[in-house]
């Protein structure tokens, strides 16, 4: 069954500054819909009289991702929030290989003596197999 990796979303904004206008509109209009559609994500809305408005997303593996939402419209914040809800908490780096195994070799990895006859099987003029 699908387990959503996003644990909680903290929406920190100020009720007066101009760049938090999109955040305030989001809280008034779309936050309830988002919370209803994603029941396993906890949404904390805390107004604070601090610096720029911030959206903090915490994931089940502990990664915390902070996004600035200053001067963004309500629709843009909705898109951002749905994108964060679909992500897992893994770091966004280039994956070097799309595959990984802990046991790459079943028959035993090649070493220089794999295909050489051993002293037990050598048939020479004097050496006898033991």
């Amino acid at each position, binding site marked *: 069954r699908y387990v959503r990796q996003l644990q909680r979303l903290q929406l920190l904004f100020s009720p007066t500054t101009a760049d938090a206008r999109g955040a305030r509109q989001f809280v008034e209009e779309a936050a309830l819909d988002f919370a209803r559609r994603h029941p396993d994500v906890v949404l904390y809305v805390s107004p604070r009289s601090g610096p720029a408005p911030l959206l903090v997303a915490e994931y089940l593996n502990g990664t915390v991702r902070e996004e600035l939402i200053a001067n963004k419209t309500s629709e843009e914040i909705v898109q951002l929030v749905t994108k964060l809800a679909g992500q897992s908490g893994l770091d966004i780096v280039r994956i070097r290989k799309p595959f990984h195994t802990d046991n*790459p*070799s*079943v*028959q*035993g*990895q*090649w070493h220089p003596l*794999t*295909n050489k006859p051993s002293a037990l099987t050598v048939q020479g003029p004097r050496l006898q197999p033991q």
Partner: protein
Amino acid sequence: MVLLSAPRWLRSRLTDRFWRVQEVLKYARHFRGRKNRCYKLAVRSVRRAFVKSTKARREKKRFLRALWITRIEAASLEHGLKYPAFISNLLKSQVELNRKVIADLAIYEPKTFKSLAALAQRRRQEGFLAALGDGKEPEGIFSRIVHHY
């Protein structure tokens, strides 16, 4: 921000310069010499590094294929077969494995590779018999072609 009259724009100052410079320098941190510290030298070096990495993506495919071929050649020589004989006989026996997979088998599954080499050798002998024998000998077993349609 739209400034309406000319003398006013002289009062706006660039405050971001540090971060704009760091955006470039962060890609130059592992370089050698002054180009990992000085912005003017780093800009040129970083641009050349990006261009080279873009062009090298085409070369990487060629390079890796040559690496696989070298490894398959070394492994098949251990079993007494040369690379062209190995690959051509494997294709004639309808074993369509690419060089990457055969190279990985040669490293991690040596017994499987030995059996592939034995298959190629057997198909080679059957090919020789079919070409030189010209008699009433039966056709080779491994020379039969299976149609999958």
